[in-house]
């Protein structure tokens, strides 16, 4: 019985994928989790496991990095939501044949490395750079450079993660059947009521996926704070990088990573519970 079940064609064909996932996905994750429990500054898993790394983190100021990462990610997602909805609406409903062109414009920058693009912004914003240099030579005004401020970090994150919010959102908006809009309007709803009662709830699956995708990516952001923020703010991923490289303290880095995964995972689960994505999607 058990053997015949194991040999069922479905099970048999799933074996390669299961092995691939175990080796490629579960193994590194388990290694990181394991490393978070070994003594600090050691490089082997086979030792006395303990909670030392976690105790060290809770006695340190690492929580500040967590807060910066979560806060910047939250602000980024909110700004993205406000910017992307109108563009998504346009792509799905207004631009028509031009929407391919607009999509391309938003996609092409993705072909260039993120760091290169961020250094491009440095050149744009730096003192005597594209923006300030032009202002100075044309109008003789010399404002302070915005580089190395928190605002410019958000600017960079919004810029980098925009496609990850925009495209799921566009999908969400285009999932709303035209006739439901017409029907709501016909039943006396104002433009705002049509949006609130029909368009927003029906495009919610796409919007939620955009939120989650851009939030998870933004929490792990590191280059924006380094390049544009001039390391004035240390996000959590920068802490993790330092622990693994300069500090040569893999167990501490692993413990920080595990905590980050726990925090983000919990937030995502809470959101998914609030908005039952499966139910919304499964209804179609």
């Amino acid at each position: 019985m058990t053997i015949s079940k194991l040999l069922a064609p479905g099970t048999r064909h799933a074996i390669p994928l299961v092995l691939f996932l175990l080796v490629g996905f579960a193994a590194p994750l388990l290694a990181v989790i394991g490393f978070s429990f070994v003594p600090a500054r050691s490089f082997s898993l086979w030792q006395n496991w303990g909670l030392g790394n976690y105790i060290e983190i809770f006695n340190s100021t690492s929580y500040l990095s967590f807060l910066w990462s979560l806060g910047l990610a939250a602000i980024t997602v909110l700004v993205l939501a406000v910017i992307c909805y109108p563009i998504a609406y346009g792509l799905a409903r207004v631009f028509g044949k031009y929407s391919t062109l607009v999509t391309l414009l938003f996609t092409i920058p993705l072909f260039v490395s993120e760091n290169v693009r961020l250094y491009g912004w440095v050149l744009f914003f730096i003192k005597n750079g594209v923006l300030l240099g032009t202002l100075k030579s044309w109008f003789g005004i010399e404002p302070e450079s915005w580089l190395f401020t928190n605002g410019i970090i958000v600017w960079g994150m919004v810029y980098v993660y925009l496609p990850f919010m925009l495209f799921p959102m566009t999908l969400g908006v285009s999932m709303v059947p035209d006739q439901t809009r017409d029907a709501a309007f016909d039943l006396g709803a104002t433009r705002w009521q049509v949006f609130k009662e029909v368009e927003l709830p029906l495009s919610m699956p796409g919007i939620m996926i955009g939120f989650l995708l851009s939030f998870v990516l933004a929490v792990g952001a590191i280059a924006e704070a380094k390049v544009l923020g001039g390391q004035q703010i240390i996000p959590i991923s920068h802490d993790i990088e330092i622990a693994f490289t300069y500090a040569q303290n893999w167990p501490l880095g692993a413990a920080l990573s595990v905590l980050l995964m726990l925090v983000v995972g919990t937030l995502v689960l809470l959101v998914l519970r609030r908005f039952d994505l499966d139910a919304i999607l499964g209804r179609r």
Partner: protein
Amino acid sequence: MNGRSPILQLRNLTKTFGNFTAVKDINLDITEGEFFTIVGPSGSGKTTMLRMLTGMESATSGDILLRGTRINDLPANKRPTCMVFQSLALFPHRTVGQNIEFSLKIKNIAPDVRKARALQLMDQLRLPQDYYGKSVTKCSGGERQRVALARALAYDPDILFFDEPLSAIDYKLRKTLEKELKDIHRETGKTFIYITHSLEEAMVMSDRIGVMRAGQLVQVGSPQQIYGAPETKFVSEFVGDVNVMAVRAGGAATVHAAEFNIDFVSPSVPAGFAAGHLVVRPESLRFLSAHNEAQNCLEGRLYNEYVLGSRIQYQVRVNDHVFIVEKLRQQAFTGKLDDNVLIGWDAKDSILVTD
């Protein structure tokens, strides 16, 4: 309601998209409380016309008058009319009750009043009361149909529009719903304007039918008039099977059919009639045993027969022209396939139409 005064008047209503004229110069009065159906093949402009009447499309020229007031520029959400969509356009994220109450919620009516009204409509439309909290996506096709109708009725519109809402429903249920809809029309006394490509559906329900072709209303009349006295070949062919023969003017009461090289006795030939078609419905054609049993007679070969339940159809070929003869099952024809047969009809059973 006196049933006489017009509720909706269309004056030279026209809609063009670029060079294409979708709706052309429509003039029509629809009476208060009437069940009016617009019939036409796809692409005849009937949906565009309906969208203009509901306010979802603007008219290029002409007037739409509701009880004498021009409403061309009134947006859909301000018009006292409501539409049941082809796709029904129910809100999938809402329950049956929330769908029905939508327009009441928009008007900020108290929740308990809304619910009472929704339950009353559900009762009227034979939806079980415990469906109130059920997701519309879990309802069957017929139930969704009723929810859509209840949602429109909750708006309490002066005119209810229907855009082929029954087209995606299987035959048996459609027949039931057609009759139910006509019952609802009687109960509510509201004006119903219905759009369909099926004249059969239109005839079951309507007080009057308007046939559309290429953006124009080609004939308006009662179901009996449309069926019994079509004015053009197009209208005559729109209802089920029909026998059509090309004819040109002959004598005072005859027309000449070149195909058979024969003169047919015809209903009165209008002055100025040059050429057109003679139409004979399948049930008006008879099998004859002698030439003199009918005013017009043709000799042909019995080619096939089709049993349609209560009726039987016979295909008779005269040269290459296919005729359809229809008999009640009880009066089935006894001839065999490939027999030579005589078919005929009297002038009063034929209709002379133009193209």
